């Protein structure tokens, strides 16, 4: 069975721990999670390894999550990778900007398994295809 390769970019160690945990608690899907501590690391990891899914904290040092998203969407080879933005504030301007930049989904921190599931369902067909790959879990 082929696991879904996820890149999680999050600068805060505790938030990273909690998000990884929420992802691990998802049922019926096997994930391979790589983490990055800032936007720069995230961009390197994405262009090198082309993950199936990218989770981005909106506020990070060096390069913010919104900036990573902007660059992904400007890159013809990377723009099709679905993204889930993470933020501990429900500030509508952040969410609006993220959607305007073309994110596929948005999850409010602290991420729980339930919240993550809801956020991933927003990916629609794409997520369905990822988790129901012939070799994947049902």
């Amino acid at each position, binding site marked *: 069975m082929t696991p879904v390769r996820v890149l999680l970019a999050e600068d805060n160690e505790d*938030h990273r721990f909690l998000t990884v945990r929420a992802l691990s608690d998802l049922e019926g899907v096997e994930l391979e999670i790589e983490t990055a501590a800032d936007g720069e690391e995230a961009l390197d990891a994405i262009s090198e390894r082309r993950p199936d899914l990218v989770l981005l904290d909106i506020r*990070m*040092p060096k390069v913010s999550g919104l900036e990573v998203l902007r660059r992904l969407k400007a890159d013809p080879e990377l723009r099709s990778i679905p993204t889930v933005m993470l933020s*501990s504030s429900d500030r509508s301007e952040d969410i609006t900007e993220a959607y305007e930049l073309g994110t596929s989904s948005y999850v409010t*921190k*602290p991420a*729980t398994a339930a919240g993550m599931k809801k956020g991933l369902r927003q990916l629609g067909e794409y997520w369905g295809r990822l988790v129901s790959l012939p070799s994947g879990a049902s």
Partner: protein
Amino acid sequence: MTFDVVTSDGAVRADGQLAARVASVLVVDDDVDHRELISRRLTSVGMRVTPVATADEALAALGGVDLVLLDYKLGGRDGLEVLGQIRSLPAPPAVIMVTGMGSEQVVIACMRAGASDYVVKDSGYLRNLPTVVERAWRHHDLERRARELERLALLVTSAPDRDGALHEIVAGALRLLAADECEVQLAEEAGARAVAGEVSLELRVPITLPETGRLGDLVVRRRSGGPFTDEETRLGSTFASFAAIAIAKLRQLELERSLVAELQHTLDMRRQLVAGVSHELRTPLTAISGFAQTILNHWDRIAEADRKDMIARIRANAAELGALVEQLLDFASVEAGRLRVDVGVIDLEPEAREAVADLAPVLADRTIVIDVPTGLTARADAGILRRLLTNLLTNAAKYTPQSAAIAVRAVTVDDSERVRMEVADTGDGLSSEELERVFEPFWRAEATRNSRRGTGIGLALVRDYARLMGGEAGVDSAPGEGATFWFTLPR
């Protein structure tokens, strides 16, 4: 620097010279004999005369004319109507009505319509004509100057910028004083510009304000012509007063503008504080809430060691929140001048060790070197000194990679009267702009600005703390060479 030197061109100078003497007269009379006689009489005293016979010719020849001698009866056309047409021009010349004997009553209507004077063609009228023309011209010119001064006064009190207002004053003085050059020399902008060419006559009038005294001079120069008359000197003083009013008014405006800008800055700072602080408060809160929720939901499925780890993380985040709130309260107290300082003698070496030990989670894998002489003491408030060191260490950690080294040092300075403590990092260092601004509240280095991390008050507080304890704080750094933040304390 001297500014606003306006050297008049030919046109302006010609115009200016008219201020002294009438030069160009238009004689309008359909009687060829009178036309000839009047023209000859005025030419004999040096006036330039253009004789014409009809109203239409007169209206076509008005350009550059100072004064019109207008016959009341022009081939059946009403002189009053022609006068009206002339007076309705934008800058009309002076008009003297010329009437035949016995029609004096019409002159009243003409004077009401704007004529400067009238002449009755009696037996001796030619003899006095030059005097009448000169007088009418002076009267007309006086009115013209008054209007010009009035226009300038309005302009000066409403001009939005100083140089614009002074430029108008200089141009006005050039016109009304028949000058070749005019400039405003302000004391604050020393060094007068050398004047090109030979200047024969100079009028220098001080520009003064009651509250600040002499601001500079208004200088008017002529290359030729007679000396400045008393009247012209008075006029010069009026222009100098205008300049003083303009400068005072614009100083007031500048003051108001800077007050508005300061207010705006304060409001911006408040907005940044709210934005920065909310995010800083939310980060540990999010972690606390996440760990608590995870423990609650999965109590049985989490190993005891993991549960303990999560609770320890909750405690660490709560401590971070507490420190943040403390920092905000300090900032508010310092702003209000109410931060209490309780100074005692502090042993610096153990103090440095404890500060570093307390920050172990923040400093992570960084190598910390503590180089503080054993037994070295300073006079400081224990709580404030700890917060000061904590802020500097946290700052060093925030701007350096995990592998970086941080040194905490202390030495005596000023003949052992003071202690200088340093927190030196091996990070990217600061640019000269950053060096200047790093202690400003809410200012943050370029690298972190977009990510909006931090409250932006940590380093501002470092300086406040040091000063409150009788010391000073600063930073030495260059790009690529790390940064050394220091503060001094009395011993």
